[in-house]
């Protein structure tokens, strides 16, 4: 027998909910638009990935991946000063953006809002890497355009109650 969380996520609205969460976070915290688009990241340039773990009613992760220039610009929009390099402040900013997107997304599903917990952010940097999860139950992969920058956001569900 299906449980409420599973039924909710089978209704098919979760990708649109992610778009809505992304738009809300960028608008309120950066004063910027971020809209779904066919935007690709280059594998051979340094990329930054923020990861928020999801546990409880749904186990998995929310990831935000972008290039170095994008991360610097997002941090600048948030704090109002222009960082010169990928320092702790920039990683902190990217982690918080991912955290707010994960929170806003799960907040659109009543069962997940109260039954799914978020981890504190982890940030990975490097080139030409992939994040893998074993046998995800479902995943949402969406690309967005923020100014002239590409941002890729995924929700990966390992299991759901």
């Amino acid at each position, binding site marked *: 027998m299906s449980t409420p969380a599973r039924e909710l996520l089978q209704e098919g609205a979760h990708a649109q909910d992610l778009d809505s969460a992304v738009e*809300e*976070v960028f608008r*309120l*915290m950066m004063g910027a638009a971020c809209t779904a688009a066919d935007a690709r990241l280059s594998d051979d340039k340094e990329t930054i990935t923020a990861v928020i773990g999801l546990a409880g009613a749904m186990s998995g992760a929310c990831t935000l991946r972008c290039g170095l220039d994008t991360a610097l610009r997002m*941090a600048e929009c*948030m*704090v*109002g000063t222009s960082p010169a390099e990928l320092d*702790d*402040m920039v990683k*902190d*900013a990217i*982690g*918080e953006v991912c*955290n*707010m997107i*994960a*929170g*806003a997304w799960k*907040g659109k599903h*009543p069962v997940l*809002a*109260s039954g799914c917990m*978020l*981890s*504190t952010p982890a940030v990975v940097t490097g080139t030409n890497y992939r994040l893998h999860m074993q046998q995800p139950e479902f995943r949402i992969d969406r690309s967005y355009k923020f100014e002239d920058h590409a941002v890729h956001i995924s929700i990966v569900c390992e299991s759901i109650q």
Partner: protein
Amino acid sequence: MSNINALIVDDSSVMRKIVERALRQAGLSLDKVYEASSGAEALEVLKSEQVQLVLSDINMPMMDGLEFLRQMRAQELAPDVPVVMITTEGSEEHVKAAIAAGAQGYIRKPFTPEQVKDRVLPLLDLA
């Protein structure tokens, strides 16, 4: 009301800056702004400093915001000072838990300066 001292508790330094900026945009005259990156650090600040407002995240390593709030109330640190939780966790259950722990206000991230103004100023009799 004269300038106030505020304590902002969040494991993200970026969020602490954003919250401080939102308080100033809300029209608050801040004298000193103390920052803490965990609940434990925040308790130490309250033992030595006078503040008139506390804003705290919930999801933090070591000691989360709800436990910080419970211990703050149990130890009677700044007993009359309003505490506003600012967090990504916006469900009704989380709000109830925060109120039960002793919070006077709740703001969900992401937020606007107007939301900060609407939630915080009434607690300081500045609305």
